[in-house]
């Protein structure tokens, strides 16, 4: 039996998750849309232009009809910023799962979550450890969703380099995109994790995808230019834009390690943060 306070928390979290997913599935963030339009104006090949035009037209249709941009509505990856005054209880996890179930019905989302071995579909995008929930302490109470599609997730990579192999990072990032080719629906955004631990570096790579893509530091720009030099282009059909951006997130690591991970994100770079109406 939950207390009235816990019920209120559950409801607020569920509502915020539902709102965030509805928004994320039907609209791209303004920085991503701007990057696609910039890419469109800088392309020189007819095919690349046509591909980008179709993407931009698709976004207009999704917005007008209020339907998902892509039929791969992803798996729900959720980041929670929790202020000190809200205690971490089961109501938060349950509220997020409830929001995911409601979004699956109402948006609607494709039921994508299955058991990894029996492949049995839960039908509601929930399962063991799914939604994937990451909770951090923060100033305000917010929920960020990053619905992650499989085409791009499947070509993501991780490697444990030696500390002396720092110059291999660039090669590894570009090689990841060379191997991926048109499969992850380019133009992509690459989230690069550098440092941390074996498991932590992949989390850093995914968190890098939460950053806006309208600015890059010198190293990010260098990596992005090197990826674009491959000429894979929109949907692997050739062109100047293979990556819209590369974003890096770093973490302290063991003096004997240099973990690197690349989380590939398709052009449908969905992320939305909403405030939770609580307390």
């Amino acid at each position, binding site marked *: 039996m939950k207390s009235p306070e816990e019920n209120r928390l559950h409801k607020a979290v569920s509502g915020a998750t539902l709102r965030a997913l509805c928004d994320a599935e039907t609209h791209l963030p303004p920085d991503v849309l701007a990057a696609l339009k910039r890419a469109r104006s800088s392309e020189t090949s*007819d*095919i690349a232009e046509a591909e980008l035009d*179709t993407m931009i037209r698709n976004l207009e249709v999704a917005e007008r009809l209020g339907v998902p941009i*892509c*039929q791969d509505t992803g798996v729900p990856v959720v980041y929670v910023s929790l202020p000190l005054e809200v205690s971490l209880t089961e109501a938060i996890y349950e509220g997020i799962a409830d929001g995911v179930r409601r979004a699956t019905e109402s948006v609607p989302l494709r039921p994508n979550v299955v058991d990894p071995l029996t492949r049995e579909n839960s039908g509601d995008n929930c399962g063991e450890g799914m939604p994937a929930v990451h909770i951090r302490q923060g100033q305000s109470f917010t929920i960020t969703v990053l619905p992650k599609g499989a*085409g791009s997730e499947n070509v993501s990579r991780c490697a444990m380099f030696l500390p002396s192999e720092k110059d291999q990072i660039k090669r590894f990032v570009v090689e990841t995109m*060379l191997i991926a080719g048109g499969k992850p629906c380019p133009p992509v955004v690459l989230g690069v994790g550098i440092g941390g631990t074996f498991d932590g570096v992949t989390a850093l790579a995914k968190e890098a995808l939460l950053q806006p893509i309208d600015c890059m530091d010198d190293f990010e720009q260098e990596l992005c230019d090197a990826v674009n030099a*491959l*000429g894979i282009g929109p949907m692997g059909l050739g062109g100047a834009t293979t990556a819209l951006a590369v974003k890096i997130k770093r973490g302290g690591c063991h003096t004997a390690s240099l973990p690197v991970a690349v989380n590939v994100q398709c052009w449908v770079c969905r992320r939305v943060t909403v405030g939770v109406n609580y307390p």
Partner: protein
Amino acid sequence: MKDLRTPLGDEVLDLRAGDRVTLSGIVYTARDEAHQRMQTEGIPFRPEGAAIYHCGPVIQNEHIVAAGPTTSARMNELSGFLIDNGVKALIGKGGMGTKVLEELKDRAVYLAYTGGCAALAASRMTLKGVYFRDLGMAEAVWAIELDHLPLTVGMDAHGGDLFADVRKKAECSFNQAFPKI
């Protein structure tokens, strides 16, 4: 831009990799499981002149909500029997392998639809029927009528493969930028 309509005939043999076309008429969605089922139980629709769409749509109340393409390469080993039975076009994203390129020769084409563009696709579709419904929403075979879906010829019936050309250039550019030590 050429306007194509199913059932398709020998007009697909005139297409070349890189051409832009639109497609209208009935297409059938099929992913991994539907291909496997069709190999054992037979093709549930008339395959002559048909187009197969690699897609697992979102359907709500018998209405297509979102229906973009899935990665075609997963069907690399599963497509020959369809072309043998008269299928004239495979539609999807990312292109297919050299085995399929051989199978397409003088018979059929691979058409690329822009990945992620599920809302635009759905706005040009009408649901006409379903086979193998027990496979679930994503894996069932949905019969869908298209109204001028914009596509790019990715692989033609004469060995032309735009994806392979792009891949080759990307490999050259990579080897130049990062020479083997």
